[in-house]
C-alpha cells in the first residue's frame, strides 16, 4: 500500500541551528504514528514543514505517493493535511460553528456556508463520536472540548492526515483518555494520525508505530508492540535513563510544616480547599496527587502566601502563622524560609523577558546579599547566577541571555536553582516537570531527592501520578478540595486512581 506520507532527506536550518537533518519518514495509511523526542529535537519543525509553515531547505515530500511542494497552510489543507496545534488556533468569542468554517466558508455570504457546516458537523459527530454543541462559545468550553473543535476543524476541511502536536499537555487524564478513543475511531475510519509528544506513556498506549527524533535527526522507527518505554527513552536521550528515581528510604525528623484546618474560597466564592490538615517532616517528600482542578493549585498558592485563606493556621518550623491575616504574603512567607516552585513557571516563576541573572534572584531582590536597600549588587547577582548555572547544568550557560530563549527544561532549572539555593526549610513544588524533557526531568528529580536527604521538608504537587510515586515518601490524595486519603507511594495504582476519582474516599 502507498504510504500516506513519505519524507525523503528533509533538511531545515535556522541560522546556525540545524533543526532537521536528512529526515526520512514513512507513515502508513490508516495508522497512528507517534513521533517522540525531547524538547528541541526538531519534531515541531518537521511538522511545521509538513503543514506549510516553513519550507524545507532540501528534501522531498510525498503525499499518497505523489511528490508535492507545500508552500503554505492553504496548500497543506488542500492536500488533506490537518493540524491540531499545541496552542489552539481558535477564536475565543466565536461559536464552535464559526470557528469550524473560518477559512472554509464556501461563499462570500456566510449564511449558506454556516448551515451547510452545521449539517456536516452533525455527520462528523455521528461518524466519529465528536460531540460538541455547535452554538457554544469557544471561551466557555473546557480545553478538552476546544481540542475536539480543532479536530472537527481539520475533518471539516477533509483532512485525511491529522497531525497532533503535544495534544495532552493541557488535558486532564480523563480528557486525554477520551482523546485517545477519538484517535482510535479516526484510525479505524481510515484516517492517518501523526502524534507528536514527549510522553512515552502515550506512545505506548496509543500508537501503532513510533519514530524517535534526537537533536534534529530521526534515530529510529519501531513497531510500538515490539519496543518498550526503556528502549524508547534510551533512543530519545542517547543513553540509558532511570525512569525509576534512585533513592534511599526517607529519614523523617521533626515536623517543619503543619497545616491545620485550612479553608480557601476563590474569587467566585467557591470553596476550593476544604478543611485540609496535614504535616510535612524534615527529610521527607509529601506528594499531593489528584486530577488537576481539585484544589491542589489553590492549596499550594495559599501556603506560598499568594492567595489568602478564609480559615486555617500553619506552623513553619514551629512558628505559628495565621493565614487569615492580611500581612501574610509571598514575601513574608519567603522570610519564614518557605521556598516555592510555582506550577506555572511562565506566569508565576519567571519574567521571561528578563535576563537569566535577573530571574535568578527574583523575589529575593531585597535580600541584603543582593541589594543594599537602594541599588542591586549586579556583579554579585551575576556571580550567583553563574554558580547556579554551573551547578544545575543550565544551558546555554549565559546569565545575560533573555530567559525566554531557554528551553522549558532549562527555565525550570532556573526556578529550581533559585529556590533550592536560598536554603529553604520547606520547599513547595508544583508540577516540577511539566513541559520538561526527559533529561531535565531526571536532573530535577535527583535535585529534589538531594534536598530531601539534606533534611528539608518538601511538599510536591503534581498531576503526573508517576512522578508522585517516584518521588514522594507519603502520598496524600486530593479530591474536590479535601484530602481523601493517605497512601504509601507503592500503593496499588488502581486504588490511587479510584481515590483521585473520588470513589471510596474516606473523607472526613
Amino acid at each position, binding site marked *: 500500500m502507498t504510504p500516506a506520507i513519505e519524507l525523503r532527506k528533509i533538511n531545515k536550518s535556522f541560522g546556525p541551528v540545524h533543526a532537521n537533518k536528512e529526515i526520512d519518514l514513512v507513515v502508513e495509511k490508516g495508522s497512528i504514528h507517534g513521533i517522540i523526542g525531547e524538547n528541541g529535537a526538531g519534531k515541531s519543525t518537521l511538522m511545521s514543514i509538513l503543514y506549510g509553515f516553513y519550507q524545507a531547505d532540501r528534501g522531498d515530500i510525498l503525499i499518497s505517493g505523489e511528490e508535492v511542494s507545500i508552500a503554505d*497552510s492553504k496548500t497543506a489543507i488542500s492536500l488533506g493535511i490537518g493540524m491540531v496545534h499545541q496552542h489552539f488556533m481558535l*477564536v475565543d468569542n466565536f461559536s464552535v460553528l464559526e470557528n469550524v468554517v*473560518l*477559512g472554509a*466558508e464556501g461563499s462570500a455570504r*456566510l449564511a449558506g456556508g454556516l448551515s451547510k457546516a452545521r449539517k456536516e458537523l452533525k455527520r462528523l459527530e455521528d461518524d466519529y463520536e465528536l460531540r460538541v454543541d455547535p452554538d457554544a462559545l469557544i471561551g466557555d468550553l473546557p480545553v478538552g472540548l476546544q481540542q475536539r473543535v480543532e479536530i472537527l476543524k481539520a475533518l471539516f476541511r477533509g483532512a485525511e492526515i491529522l497531525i497532533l502536536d503535544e495534544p495532552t499537555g493541557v488535558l486532564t487524564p480523563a480528557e486525554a483518555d477520551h482523546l485517545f478513543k477519538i484517535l482510535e475511531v479516526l484510525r479505524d475510519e481510515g484516517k492517518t494520525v501523526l502524534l507528536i509528544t514527549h510522553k512515552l506513556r502515550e506512545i505506548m498506549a496509543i500508537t501503532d508505530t513510533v519514530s524517535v527524533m534526537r537533536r534534529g535527526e530521526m534515530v529510529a522507527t519501531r513497531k510500538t508492540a515490539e519496543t518498550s518505554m526503556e528502549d524508547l527513552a534510551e533512543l530519545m536521550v542517547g543513553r540509558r535513563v532511570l525512569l525509576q528515581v534512585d533513592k534511599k528510604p526517607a529519614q523523617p525528623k521533626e515536623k517543619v510544616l503543619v497545616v491545620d484546618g485550612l479553608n480557601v474560597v476563590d474569587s467566585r466564592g467557591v470553596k476550593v480547599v476544604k478543611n485540609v490538615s496535614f504535616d510535612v517532616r524534615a527529610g521527607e517528600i509529601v506528594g499531593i496527587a489528584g486530577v488537576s482542578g481539585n484544589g491542589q493549585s489553590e492549596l499550594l498558592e495559599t501556603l506560598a502566601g499568594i492567595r489568602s485563606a478564609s480559615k486555617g493556621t500553619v506552623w513553619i518550623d514551629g512558628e505559628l502563622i495565621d493565614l487569615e491575616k492580611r500581612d501574610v504574603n509571598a514575601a513574608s512567607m519567603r522570610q519564614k524560609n518557605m521556598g516555592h516552585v510555582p506550577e506555572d513557571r511562565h506566569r508565576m516563576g519567571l519574567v521571561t523577558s528578563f535576563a537569566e541573572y535577573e530571574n535568578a534572584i527574583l523575589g529575593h531582590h531585597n535580600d541584603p546579599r543582593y541589594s543594599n536597600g537602594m541599588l542591586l549588587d549586579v556583579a554579585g547577582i551575576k556571580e550567583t547566577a553563574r554558580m547556579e548555572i554551573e551547578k544545575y547544568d543550565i544551558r546555554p550557560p549565559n546569565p545575560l541571555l533573555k530567559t525566554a530563549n531557554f528551553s522549558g527544561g532549562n527555565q525550570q532549572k532556573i526556578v529550581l536553582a533559585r529556590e533550592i539555593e536560598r536554603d529553604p526549610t520547606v520547599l513547595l513544588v508544583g508540577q516540577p516537570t511539566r513541559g520538561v524533557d526527559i533529561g531535565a526531568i531526571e536532573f530535577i528529580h535527583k535535585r529534589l531527592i538531594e534536598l530531601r536527604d539534606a533534611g528539608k521538608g518538601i511538599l510536591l504537587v503534581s498531576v503526573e501520578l508517576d512522578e508522585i510515586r517516584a518521588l514522594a515518601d507519603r502520598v496524600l490524595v486530593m479530591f474536590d478540595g479535601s484530602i481523601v486519603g493517605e497512601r504509601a507511594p507503592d500503593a496499588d495504582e488502581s486504588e490511587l486512581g479510584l481515590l483521585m476519582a473520588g470513589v471510596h474516599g474516606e473523607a472526613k
Partner: protein
Amino acid sequence: MFETYLHTMILILDSTVRLSTPLLLACLAGLYSERSGIVDIGLEGKMLGAAFGAGAVGYMTGNAWLGLLAGIGVSIFLALLHGFASITNRGNQIVSGVAINFLAAGLTALLGQSWFRQGGRTPPLPKEGRFQDIELPFAEQVETVPVIGPIYSELLSGHNILVYLAFAAVPLTWWILFRTRFGLRLRAVGENPAAVDTAGISVVWLRYRAVIACGILCGVAGSYLSIAQSSGFIKDMTAGRGFIALAALIFAKWKPGNAMLACLLFGFLDAVAIRLQGQEIPGIGDVPVQFFQALPYILTVILLAGFIGKAIPPKASGVPYLKERT
C-alpha cells in the same frame, strides 16, 4: 408652547445629525481597522488630510465628487502608510498613528499656505464644489402635518448625500461584519491572527483590506467637513473629532449599532452646546460658553472612566502578528 418646544427640539436634533455624521464615519472607519487588530489613533490625521484634499480639489475643479474622490485618495494613502508601518514592518501602531496625525497637521497647513496663500485655508468653494442638501420627496407637502410633518421635512429631509451615506453605512457595516465571509475573517484576525493564518488565510492581506476600508470611510468623513458641512478647508478643522470618534468606538464596544448611538450622543451634546451658547439657563444663570464646549470631552472622560462597563477590545488589537512556532 408645544409647537415652539417641538421646533427647538427638531432644530437641535437636526444639527445633531449634521454634527454626528463625521464622527460616525470616522468611528466606523476605526471599527474596521480595530476589528482587524490594527489600532488606529491616526483617524484624526486621515480626516484632516482628506478634508484638505477634498477642499483643494473641490475648489480647483468645482466638482464635489472629484473633491470627495481626492479626499478618499489622500486618506487611503495615509492608511496604507499606517498599514506599511504596522502590518508589513510590525511597528508600534500608536507611534505610527501619532506620526500620521502630525504629518497631516503639518502638511495640510504647509501645502495650503503655499498653494492658496490664505493662511492655510482654501478659498471658499464654488457651489458646485460642495455637496448640496437634498430635499426628500413630498417634504414640502407634508410640512404642515402636525409633529410628523416637521420631523420628516426638517429632520429627515434636507441633508446632503454624505449624511445619508454615513447612516446607511451602519447597517451595511453590521451586515458585512456578521453576515459575510470577509466579516468573519476580519473579526477573527483581530482576535487570534494565528487561527486565521493556520486556516490558510493571509493575515497581512486581510489586515491591509481592513486598513483600506478604514481609509475610505475616514476619507468620506474628512471630505464631509470641508466640502459638505462647510465650504472650504480650514487649518486644523477636524478639531479632535478623530479622537472623539475613537472614544465613541470604545464606548460602543466596537459594535456598529452602538457606534451610531454613541456618535449621535456626542453630536447631540455638541448641538446643545452650540444652542445654549450665550443663553441664560433658568435657575443657574449665565453659563460660560467654554463649559458647553467642554461638555462632550468631559462626558467622554466620565463615560470611559467607568460608566459603560468593561469595554473589551479585540484581543489581538495593537499586537503585530509574527509567525512564530515554538
